């Protein structure tokens, strides 16, 4: 087989897994108990690996906050010392089949959603979504209120959610997205329909159960219309865990930003990240006083939803978000149309009537991005240098990540052929 045939065969396998995988939310457990390679001395953050001295302010705050919450330190300075001394290792979440939203730092005792791909067996992980408020670790803040919330999640909210999904025998995420097809979710930055449909199922079970603070937990859960995002991030990781194991494939299996660098990984190039300076997420400033200078570069792993064919890839399904962030309905259709040109497959569980009943393109092929010079779009929320969300909008995926990936996969194939 020549190189082209090897890649075609590998990409065909990737397409099968991406469209045939069945992510099911099965549990909520402490990160350290379930995430592969996670130890009490590991902290997971978003994006490609980053040198400690380059970690931007909001992520640094989240890291230190997580260490204080874990009772590893009593002050921010003491916590940071654990990182700079190498006692605590800060690693890329996606290298552990996990994902971190924005500035989030995930530590061992934090409850994470566990999603299992029932067809190919992969498992993915993501912290329980903290709700819509800004004062959370996820947006780079740590204070007494954040500490109280983290303890509440660990001791009550997380365990109650875990008990509920276990009792339900798991929640099929494809089923949730199929049931809510055509309701306007693009499932990265907008997912009220999916969140509500999931709540519709879960609250019935919650009300039959006896656990401490049940009414408060139900109220908090039902009020979070973005809850589905973190479950789906874990879902994307569960399917991608199997795609990551396909040699020779040029299909993208990871992407994210750490605020300084933006990176991608491809199935055929193992754990290597291909990075460039992180682009800004632009669209709508959430306050009129914010400027581009206030913004960090792309920060967060929530774009693993795009890697799985949602968000910017399924923009046509959620034109409301696209229009809200300064673009048009035509732009929404164009984003999905462009993505189709550079993807290896299409999800058909939620065809969109106003987009010719087409599905969501999935599996970005680096060859097509480079060859056709078409850049897919990721939706996202931009983080302020001072912490907090500053924008909602989108960013084009940087071409150079894909060019670097192609050079690397070519080298692998040449070496194997020797």
């Amino acid at each position, binding site marked *: 087989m020549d*190189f082209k045939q090897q890649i075609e065969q590998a990409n065909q396998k990737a397409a099968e897994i991406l469209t045939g995988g069945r992510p099911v939310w099965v549990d909520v457990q402490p990160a350290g108990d379930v995430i592969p390679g996670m130890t009490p001395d590991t902290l997971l953050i978003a994006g490609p690996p980053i040198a400690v001295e380059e970690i931007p302010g909001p992520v640094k705050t989240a890291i230190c906050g997580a260490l204080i919450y874990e009772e590893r330190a009593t002050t921010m300075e003491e916590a940071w010392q654990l990182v700079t001394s190498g006692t605590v290792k800060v690693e890329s979440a996606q290298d552990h089949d996990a994902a971190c939203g924005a500035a989030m730092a995930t530590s061992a005792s934090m409850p994470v959603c566990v999603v299992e791909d029932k067809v190919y067996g992969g498992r993915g992980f993501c912290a329980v979504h903290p709700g819509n408020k800004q004062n959370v670790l996820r947006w780079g803040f740590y204070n007494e209120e954040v500490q109280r919330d983290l303890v509440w999640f660990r001791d009550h909210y997380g365990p109650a959610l875990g008990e509920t999904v276990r009792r339900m025998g798991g929640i099929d995420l494809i089923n949730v997205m199929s049931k809510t097809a055509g309701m306007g979710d693009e499932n990265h930055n907008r997912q009220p329909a999916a969140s509500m449909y999931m709540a519709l199922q879960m609250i019935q079970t919650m009300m039959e159960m006896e656990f401490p603070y049940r009414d408060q937990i139900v109220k908090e859960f039902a009020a979070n219309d973005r809850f589905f995002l973190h479950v789906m991030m874990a879902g994307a990781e569960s399917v991608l865990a199997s795609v990551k194991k396909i040699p020779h494939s040029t299909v993208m299996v990871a992407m994210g930003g750490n605020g300084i660098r933006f990176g991608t990984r491809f199935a055929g190039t193992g754990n290597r990240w291909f990075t460039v300076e992180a682009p800004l997420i632009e669209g709508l400033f959430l306050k009129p006083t914010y400027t581009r200078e206030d913004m960090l570069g792309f920060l967060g792993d929530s774009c693993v939803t795009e890697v799985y064919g949602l968000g910017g890839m399924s923009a046509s399904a959620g034109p409301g978000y696209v229009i809200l962030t300064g673009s048009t309905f035509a732009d929404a259709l164009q984003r999905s149309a462009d993505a189709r040109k550079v993807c290896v497959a299409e999800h058909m569980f939620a065809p969109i009537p106003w987009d010719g009943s087409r599905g969501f393109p999935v599996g970005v092929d680096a060859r097509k991005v480079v*060859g056709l*010079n078409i850049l897919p779009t990721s939706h996202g929320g931009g983080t302020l240098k001072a912490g907090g969300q500053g924008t909602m909008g989108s960013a084009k995926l940087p071409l150079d990540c894909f060019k670097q990936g*192609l050079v690397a996969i*070519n080298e692998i194939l040449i070496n194997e052929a020797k």
Partner: protein
Amino acid sequence: MTNTDRIQELFNSELVVLNIGPRLFGDALGKQNVEVVQVDWRPLAGGDKQMQDLLADLGI
């Protein structure tokens, strides 16, 4: 008939133009009521020679 005559004959007949790449030329003819079909063509890899050579081996 010389080549020049052939070209002249072409311009004396009704033109149907296939415009490949930049729209500017096709648009100019369109404004003169010439029927133009635009072909959405771009050079492979935006003209990047290294990538073109790679893709010759890796396929697209």
